């Protein structure tokens, strides 16, 4: 017998691969995908921004300033009178045209205002718990920094975008979380038990899928009564998004379970007398988990886009809730965006977020099957 088993000496690198679990292989393969890795860090940064939005936003997003109505973004300068100094802005001076009453803004170049870290700003309550008043960046002496200009009520657009990320970024996550739960449960039942139940579920999914997504979203959102509270609307939005989204995930789960159930190793476990539940837990779930994560990740951007679009059409979230879609409601008319193009800034955030999710998901997809060559 000993002659049959020559153990080639494995190089340390190879030995490391031999000992690598699915998730390690997954991560190593993902790591090779440079764009996806960058996207991952971008997304981490975006979610940190959403988590710490009170600190990061320089101003209270709801603070109106009649002197800054539709103010243009303040430019950050480095040179004052030809002398290099720390980044600073010039204060904005409002002019009102006496005939048209239109506002315009000029920079008061005599008074450079340096940008400081952790300045005192509008007081807030961090995560609704800790009262604080330090902001990450700001101007000294009660001056206000408007990096992306202001809306028609004179509110700081940058602060609003930062606050808006909290809702826009979480609605996708929670929506996907909900559809993931529905998808795993229903797809799992469908794939595992098969038979009549499977046929019924498959028909249902087919019917749901033949509803055109956008009109259905629109109709359901439009049915939300106007007097509902923001929290309730937010919750209903996620449910609506999830209702449409779960079918895709359920299909992935079902398909994978059907394929995995036929794998010899599942048969082996059965023959060995392993209990059904243990087989599901040890063999089936880990088998489709990576694919599910990929599908879920790629579903998040479409949910973010859906929220933005619905809110933009005034069918989703409504002011005073701040979300990227709500912010874009101000940018509906051509005349508005022609005169105040900075109102389109939230689009940049939406696009970057969705783009990063797509890159990230693409990298995950490549890594999802670490056992294929």
């Amino acid at each position, binding site marked *: 017998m000993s*002659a*049959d*088993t*020559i153990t*080639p000496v494995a190089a340390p690198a190879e030995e490391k691969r031999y000992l690598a679990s699915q998730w390690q292989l997954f991560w190593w393969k993902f790591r090779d995908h440079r764009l996806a890795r960058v996207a991952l860090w971008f997304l981490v940064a975006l979610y940190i921004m959403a988590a710490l939005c009170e600190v990061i936003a320089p101003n209270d997003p709801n603070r109106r300033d009649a002197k800054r109505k539709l103010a243009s973004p303040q430019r950050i300068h480095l040179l004052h009178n030809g002398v290099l100094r720390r980044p600073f802005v010039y204060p904005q001076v409002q002019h009102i045209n006496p005939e048209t009453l239109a506002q315009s803004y000029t920079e008061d170049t005599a008074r450079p205002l340096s940008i400081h870290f952790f300045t005192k700003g509008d007081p807030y309550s961090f995560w609704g718990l800790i009262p604080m008043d330090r902001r990450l960046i700001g101007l000294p002496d009660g001056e206000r920094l408007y990096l992306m200009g202001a809306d028609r009520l004179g509110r700081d657009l940058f602060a609003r975008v930062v606050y808006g990320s909290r809702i826009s970024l979480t609605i996708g996550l929670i929506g996907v979380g909900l559809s993931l739960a529905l998808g795993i449960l229903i797809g799992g039942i469908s794939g595992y038990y098969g038979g009549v139940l499977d046929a019924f579920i498959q028909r249902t999914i087919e019917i749901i899928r033949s509803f055109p997504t956008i009109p259905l979203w629109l109709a359901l959102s439009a049915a939300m009564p106007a007097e509902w509270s923001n929290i309730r609307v937010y919750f209903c939005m996620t449910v609506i998004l999830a209702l449409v989204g779960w079918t895709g995930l359920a299909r992935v789960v079902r398909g994978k379970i059907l394929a995995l159930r036929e794998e010899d190793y599942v048969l082996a476990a059965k023959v060995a007398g392993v209990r059904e539940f243990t087989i599901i837990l040890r063999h089936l779930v880990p088998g489709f988990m990576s694919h599910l994560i990929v599908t879920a990740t790629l579903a998040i951007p479409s949910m973010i886009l859906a929220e933005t679009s619905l809110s933009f059409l005034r069918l989703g979230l409504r002011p005073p809730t701040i979300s990227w879609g709500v912010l874009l409601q101000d940018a509906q008319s051509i005349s508005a965006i022609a005169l105040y193009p900075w109102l389109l800034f939230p689009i940049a955030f939406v696009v970057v977020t969705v783009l990063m999710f797509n890159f990230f998901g693409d990298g995950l997809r490549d890594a999802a099957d670490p056992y294929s060559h």
Partner: protein
Amino acid sequence: MSTPSENRITAVNSRMETLLDIRNLEVRFRLREGIVRAVHGINLRIAPNRTIGVVGESGCGKSITAKAMLQILPSRGKITAGEMLLAPRDGGPATDLAKLHPKGPEIRRIRGGDISMIFQEPMVSLSPVHTIGNQITESVLLHRPASKPEALDRAIEMLRLVGVPMPEKRVNAYPHELSGGLRQRCMIAMALVCRPRLLIADEPTTALDVTIQSQILSLIRRLQRELGMAVMMITHDLGVIAETSDDVAVMYLGRIVEQAPVKELFRNPKHPYTQGLLDCIPRFGKGRDQKLTSIPGSVPDPFTTVPGCPFHPRCAKRIAGVCDRGVPPLLSKVGPEHRVACVLYDAPRPEAAS
């Protein structure tokens, strides 16, 4: 690696006419893991009307060699050295297939015209969305001055020749409507419709049942006789080799380790690998008492580079300090037409590994 002068010896040494002369062929693959040498400078001569069997286990480079001959390597593979001289049909200079552009018109004339190939899995080797007739006539239209109805007639005639029942009906069938055996017959019809001079059969029966395998092998033998072509039979099954081949080349890890006429090879195997292969297949009639001699270890995957003789880690007769250093060339003459790449049959003069 052997020197050019030694190659010339092998090339000259033949009393037979040569159809295709492969010299020092080397194929490399560029993979994520690095560059893999799939074929390490092999020499092979193919004569008209004869069958050369190439036998080896998975990853020995036998299929790659065949694909290199038609320049249809996967996109990551490349011929990096060597020549493949194809004798012209009517006088003139030989064509070096290795120098032809893989997408150029010269090699395309040769593919299907002079050299044809059939593959292991007849199901996936035929297009699922085109009829059998469409796929066969395409060959005719490419290589012969024929109109479409003429081409169809030839296709039907060819299907009849390979023993497909009701060929007039079957030309309109799709591959999935046929059984595995019939599909392989259609593949053969497609390959032979333009009367090539060489048929490369890459594991043509591995996916088939024994009875059907026997039918297909006998069909290939019959067609070879009738059409007068050379056959290169690639297989891992020594039984198939014994039944079909005139000459045999045994491959291991991208190299030919032994080459001989078929009877000589089976009667008098020299290379420890060939001996091992012959010993480890169960023989009919030996019953349960036959304890099979096995070759220890397993075929290494092609990424590993073995210093010295590629077989030495599994070889029972290895000589420490010799076999792990130099790669023995395929030279040692142990009989007429019998060559082996093993230091046991050579003056002990290992060359430095390249």
